[in-house]
């Protein structure tokens, strides 16, 4: 618990640094707007929340973009201080959250099935079985994407904190990089 709190304090220290704060804010705005466009244009959540789906889309956009922006910023930071990190979580989170909007309710899946060689009757009888997964369970994809993002965030903060402790002596409240630069 104590180390988790310290990890989150380290995130805050890193984000306080002007250049990382700028990166975080720019990424946040860009991803929030992108996600809001993707989710609202495909009416994500309307089957579950009815006319309140737009609130689900707004909240989801904010949460996902916050997590991804933080992940991207920390990944850049970890490369800067040459700490090994696993950045697959950011990619996995992005892919999971954009799947419903891109694979449902478009001609992508039927086109791919036709390209592979399936017949018209197969398309008519089965395209729904595939696309409906992304439509009916769309909100679940968003939640899973957010969870993956959060796991990635937890992992990268551990990696950075461990890296900082190896690179130099205890960080306390200061940004690891600023200490590293001061030492050099």
């Amino acid at each position, binding site marked *: 618990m104590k180390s988790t709190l310290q990890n989150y304090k380290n995130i805050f220290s890193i984000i306080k640094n002007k250049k990382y704060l700028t990166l975080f804010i720019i990424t946040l705005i860009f991803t929030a707007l992108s996600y809001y466009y993707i989710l609202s244009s*495909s009416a994500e959540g*309307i089957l579950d929340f*009815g006319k309140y789906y737009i609130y689900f889309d707004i909240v989801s956009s904010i949460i996902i973009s916050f997590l991804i922006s933080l992940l991207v910023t920390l990944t850049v930071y970890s490369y800067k201080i040459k700490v090994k990190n696993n950045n697959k979580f950011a990619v996995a989170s992005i892919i999971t959250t954009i799947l419903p909007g891109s694979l449902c309710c478009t001609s992508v899946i039927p086109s791919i099935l*036709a*390209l592979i060689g399936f017949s018209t*009757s197969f398309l*008519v009888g089965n395209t729904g079985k595939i*696309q409906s997964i992304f439509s009916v369970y769309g909100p679940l994809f968003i939640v899973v994407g957010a969870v993956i993002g959060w796991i990635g965030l937890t992992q990268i903060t551990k990696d950075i904190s461990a890296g900082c402790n190896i690179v130099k002596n205890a960080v306390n409240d200061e940004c690891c990089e600023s200490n590293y630069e001061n030492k050099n």
Partner: protein
Amino acid sequence: MTSAVNQIMKTKIKFILYAIIAIFAIFIIVKLFLIENAKNAKYLSVGEIAPNYAFQLSNGTITSIYNYRGKTTLLWFVVTWCSSCAEGNSVLANNIAFFEKHNIKIIELEQYDDLGQNGMPISKFVSIYGNNNTYVQTGIASYNMTIAYNTPPNFQLDIYYLINPSGKILYIGEGLAEGISTLENIITKNKL
């Protein structure tokens, strides 16, 4: 150690680039395939006479497209598990006064077998997402009607046709929620 980390970074960047190139290649292949198929497949186009097919309304009545001659008709094909179709019903319900004023007949048909995934009955779908709107007539399209109006492989879950009183297709759109303003402009411009 620094050169090893750099090497790993370079390898990762290389894989990401390969993945991006692969995705673009798949996209281009699918697009080329669609363009080629469009030449061979018989897609309906604006100006053609809407093909006549019989279909069953939700009240059990069997009718056909020709029975709607003499009135401007909005023929809309949906599936009842699709979020954009639900949104389309909601938007249509909010704009129903416009269609009533212009005396546009609206027929919303569930595509054959809900394209393989049985959602709720079309009448219930319209009732839930269309604010219990009773202006829209609902029904189910046959297999042949579905593929005539929604030709594979360019399948759409949400596709609509504006048909004039003499049976000619005036406009074809995909995604009624987003296209409703355009549709209303066309109706107004054609003084329908």
